[in-house]
């Protein structure tokens, strides 16, 4: 087997990854809380037609246009082709390196949006950079609506061939050709298995 490019990358814990802060606080735990659901119920009398509107549900159904965190949630669970970790855990994908233009606030529903993702390979000579960039692009193409334009790049200076990789992944035809390749497609599918 070929030696991996970076045998010991630094790995983030899943709980350290950026996530949408949950608005609902976790209920108190403790020996005395067994009957809390009953005695402190917010809806003391579920009865008939006019039961109280559930606040949590209301929040869940609120409008919330696609933002950088959404993009991050889509691509951070992609597995690294070499390590048993995700791109998020390896910091290949980082939230501050994802940009949407125009920004979500004040965007119209069908306006054209450009998503820019800068990837940071774990080492400058990473041979898998192209595959990773391709996987990110492929994943986003599969999951974003058609009015989103993609720009997947290797962060400046983070790779010895950053320009070349960026150009490769930006070339639509080359990407389409790459996706025709069964071996490569197999690798990509394997990497995307961890995305739900």
């Amino acid at each position, binding site marked *: 087997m070929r030696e991996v490019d970076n045998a010991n990358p630094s790995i983030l814990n899943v709980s350290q990854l950026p996530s949408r802060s949950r608005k609902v606080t976790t209920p108190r735990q403790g020996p005395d809380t067994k009957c809390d659901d009953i005695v402190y119920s917010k809806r*003391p009398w579920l009865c008939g037609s006019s039961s109280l509107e559930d606040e949590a549900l209301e929040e869940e159904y609120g409008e919330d246009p696609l933002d950088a965190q959404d993009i991050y949630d889509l691509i951070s669970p992609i597995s690294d082709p070499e390590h048993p970790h995700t791109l998020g855990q390896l910091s290949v994908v980082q939230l501050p390196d994802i940009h949407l233009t125009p920004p979500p606030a004040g965007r119209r529903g069908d306006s054209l949006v450009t998503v820019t993702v800068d990837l940071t390979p774990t080492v400058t000579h990473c041979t898998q950079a192209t595959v990773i960039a391709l996987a990110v692009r492929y994943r986003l193409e*599969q999951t974003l*609506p058609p009015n989103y334009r993609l720009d997947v790049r290797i962060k400046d200076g983070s790779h010895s061939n950053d320009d070349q990789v960026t150009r490769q992944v930006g070339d639509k035809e080359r990407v389409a050709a790459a996706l025709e390749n069964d071996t490569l497609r197999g690798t990509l599918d394997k990497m995307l298995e961890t995305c739900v």
Partner: protein
Amino acid sequence: MAQFKQWALEYVLADDEPVQLELTKKAAKELEDSRASSTVVGNWAASVHQWMTLTHSNDDDQMEDGDEGASGDIISRAKALSFLAGTLEVLDKTILRPDQVQRLIGFFGAMFSYDHKAGITASAKALRQLYSMKNFKPEMGIKVLEDVCKLKEDFRLQTAVTRLEIYELFLSLVEDSAVSSELQHKYGSSCGFALDLLQLCSSERDPRNLMIWFKVIRRLLAEFSPSPEVTGEIFKAFSAYFPISLRSSVTPIGITAEDLKEAVRNCFSSNQRVAPFAFPFLMQKLDQGDAVTVAVKVDILRTIKACIEAYENPQVSVVPYIEKIWGSLKYEVRNGEVKETIDATLEVLRAIARKLDGSKTHKQEVALLRNYIDLVFGDCKDDLSNPTYTKQAGLLLMTVVTANIRGYVLYNAGFIEIIRQNLRQPKSSTHTRDLLLLLNSILKTRIELFKNRKDGHTEDEEQLRAETRTHILSLFHDVYLPVWTGSEEIDVLKQVALGLGLLVRQQALDAEGAVSLLCSGAICVEICKLLIVTLVKPLTLSSNDNQSHDATLEDDVVLALRTIVMSYTDGYGWIIRSARKEIKKRDWASPSEYSLEALKVLLSRLAFIGCSEIPTEVNSDTEPENPYSPLRHYDAWLWTLVYLFPLSLQSVTADSYILSSLHAAVIWFRDACEAKYRASALAQYSDSDKNWLAEFEQLPGTFFDQVESAAMLPDEIASSFGEDDPETYRQFLRLSLFIVRGFYKGATAEAPWSEQALAQLAQTAALVVQNLSEKLQVSCNLAQEAFSLFKTSEEKPCASPFSGLLTVGILQGLHPGAMTGLYQPGGVAEKFICDTSDLGSSPRASDIKAAVGTIYSNKYPAGPATSEEYQTLKRVLEFWTNKIKESVTSSDIDSDSFNSLTNVAMHTIAGAVARQEKLVLDLIPVLHEAAGSPNPNGEIVARSLGVLVQPNSEVLNKETHANIKRFYKQWAYNFLVRPLYDLARPGSDKDPKTTARYSIMILSVVKNCPFTIYQDDVESLLRLLVTALSNKKDDSVLSEEAAQAQVIAALEILVDILANEPSALKGFLKEIIGGTTKVYQESTPSNKTLHRALTTCRKLSLQVIGALPKTLEERYLLPFSRPTQRMLALACGDPVRKVREAARSARANWAKVV
């Protein structure tokens, strides 16, 4: 003679077992009839002669050539012999004379020398039968053993079944005391026969046979007295199998690897005679290091333990090996990482300590135990000061010191002293924590030892009586308190809290044998005061000062306090007094959210501490404030709540928390009673026809006046029953009813009686009432009280618009049998339900009436149709049905009011539907007609029809004695929906509005039914669903709201069908995909008021589309692939996150359709 020969021949020729059995029975009968005359027996035995002679003429070499004739002979010879064996099996066991038995044994025994091919199975069987004959003599047993052993090497060539037969024979012989004493007499300790057996059976591998063989071996070791040499030989025979395992087999044989291990283990532990072989052998196996797997290691350790426990005379059998065992085992714990091995090791060490202590009847020399514990102490003492090994060393010491009372009394002081010394100079906070953990474990084990003191030797209790306790008494001031005040580590503080709980629970025996708490009352009070501060603190701090989210310390303090007050009962009084003072100190007029949360948590914890267990009765050195009662804490807590309520007339939330806490206390204490006395305890009281409420009336004043006593139950009642008396459960309910009644009486329309507070109180009432027996509910006349709310006519009624909640509370808990009084014509219930004048006041008013109506029509006790009661019920149901019928066409009623009416009507009828009341059948056509009315109100009726199969589960459930028939939905569906399918089908001659109404009705009911109920109508239903999905949005047939609701219902049903019978959709794919796509596209969030409904529509439609590729074959979907994928791609940009998620998942599913 000829007869026997004939039978033998038939037997040999027969293949059927029943036929063979019949023949042997005939032969046996013949023998029995002749009273076993020598001639007949002789004839019988000679009947197989023709096959036997052949044997002797053929020699073995010829047979082994395997020519067919010879093998045929073997088979028939074997069958012939088994004819004889079979006859013996069914023969009367008393009939053969000793000489005949002897001769037959001689005959069959000889087979083991001569006929290894054909004779063995039948002979073994025959010998077993002969062994069970009445005239079998012990000396014959010896002959049998000797004969069988002649089989020698050919034994292993026999089939497993034959060998099993022989093993069974051996086992019967060695287990027979007469035979075994004969054997001992003949062979003495040299046990020659045993060596023959070992040789014979040396290479057995069949698990079933091994199980028996091991039993034989165990018997040889335990009951015979083999010399050390023979013991060594026997040991070799069975230890060769250790560690035993079992290959998994396709055909289960009913024996597990565990059984085999157990059987080998029984050989090891059979007798102390084995000790000199067993211990060195096992230790050597154990010391192989990494070569031993965990499973094997555990097997070894368990075997060692079994040996230690079983061997007698430990002085000789165990003591010589202790040092060696300890030497090997200590590292298993000290450096071990696998829990199973550590546990098994500790078990061994504990077993040694117990063995050296002695048994219940006989104590060993104290020196034995002393030497052992000294050995362990010497090795582990120093490890306690090393943080890396503190835990392990502590575990080892704990195990040997607290294995029995003698060891504990001798060594605990020294052990605790070492811990104390180390705690003075801890190496780190984890070191402190581990040492405290150890200390706590000692206290915990002491409680166990104390509790079980009567199970062991009588000396044990005496030792406990005389033990020194000062070192435990001083733990609070010397150890726990300094750590508590000096440390800030939560993990350390948690151990202190738990330790204090255990400390207070310690009991001691005085010289007379009376039990009391070990700690003085003063120390207990000090501990309570110390700990309660932690719980009250959040209330006294501001939210900025208390940022900590980790409540684990508080949680442990709560547990500790509960432990404490369950033993030191006065402690609860201290705790609630100090909490009460702090709560009262604050101004609750306009509390911050933080303060409210702090109050809520504090009340919840206090309720748990006092009410979640039944306190135990133990004396203390101080005179208790009140005599013991199992209800003491519960009573005190209720009193406190009464005292606190209301905290403020402005803060309704704070006050509702007090009522929540009352509710919680009732739940906790009910659960505690349930666990301790079981519900059946309530059934045994015959005086349950007493009217408790009338008794309450006799009490002086109301409980709100009894401020001074800090309790509600008078002492003479409270202390009249003990801890284990199930009367506690009944008195708890009585007290609870008393307090509920008090609060009901006090409820008014003004603050603090918010809707929340009334609802909370009502639920508490429901809980109390539901636990009362039907008889008691009747004798207390609770059905009427549900409407008078425990108030007399002079008292001011509760004018709150929500007072009906209190009515619901009581009704909810009643048994149907206790409701009878409410069905009197013109009674209070009928009036209440049929009064529509108060419906306009608030939407809640209709909900409350609906709940009362549901219960009323559901809990009707069965009775004849002619009874007044039944007529009243009928009147009520008809009243509401007619109300709808009349108002649906009326133009002077607005839709809100009509909604309220429908709400009450449908819920009232739903109660009756749940118990399949026949009256409903007459009402259904009226409802159908009302729903079909062209008036807009008809739409409301149609949409509400689903309520009939979905009554409020909070109001109606089995726990609260509701009458819910198992198949009521099926029943209702048949009458409510089935007739509508035809009517709902659109047609040129039908009014589109009416058909639309019918469709709404169907969907509204079906939505609330499981798939199995409507699966026969899926076809018709799908047509309706498709129509519902493709309805034009601006269609004037339906209101926008109704159309939306219908679409949602249709999508929900589609999801259900997809999950259960997706193939039904095949014929409708075009319409469904088109319809759902249209729904998605049209449900754009333009309208603010319908935002949620629209979002739900979008999400559900994507769910339906997304589920298709998962459930249907690709070929059906291919034609729709491209447009659907395009639409899903767009949906991935939906403004709502949940919808986007559904879209992505659907898109991924459709991506595979190409």
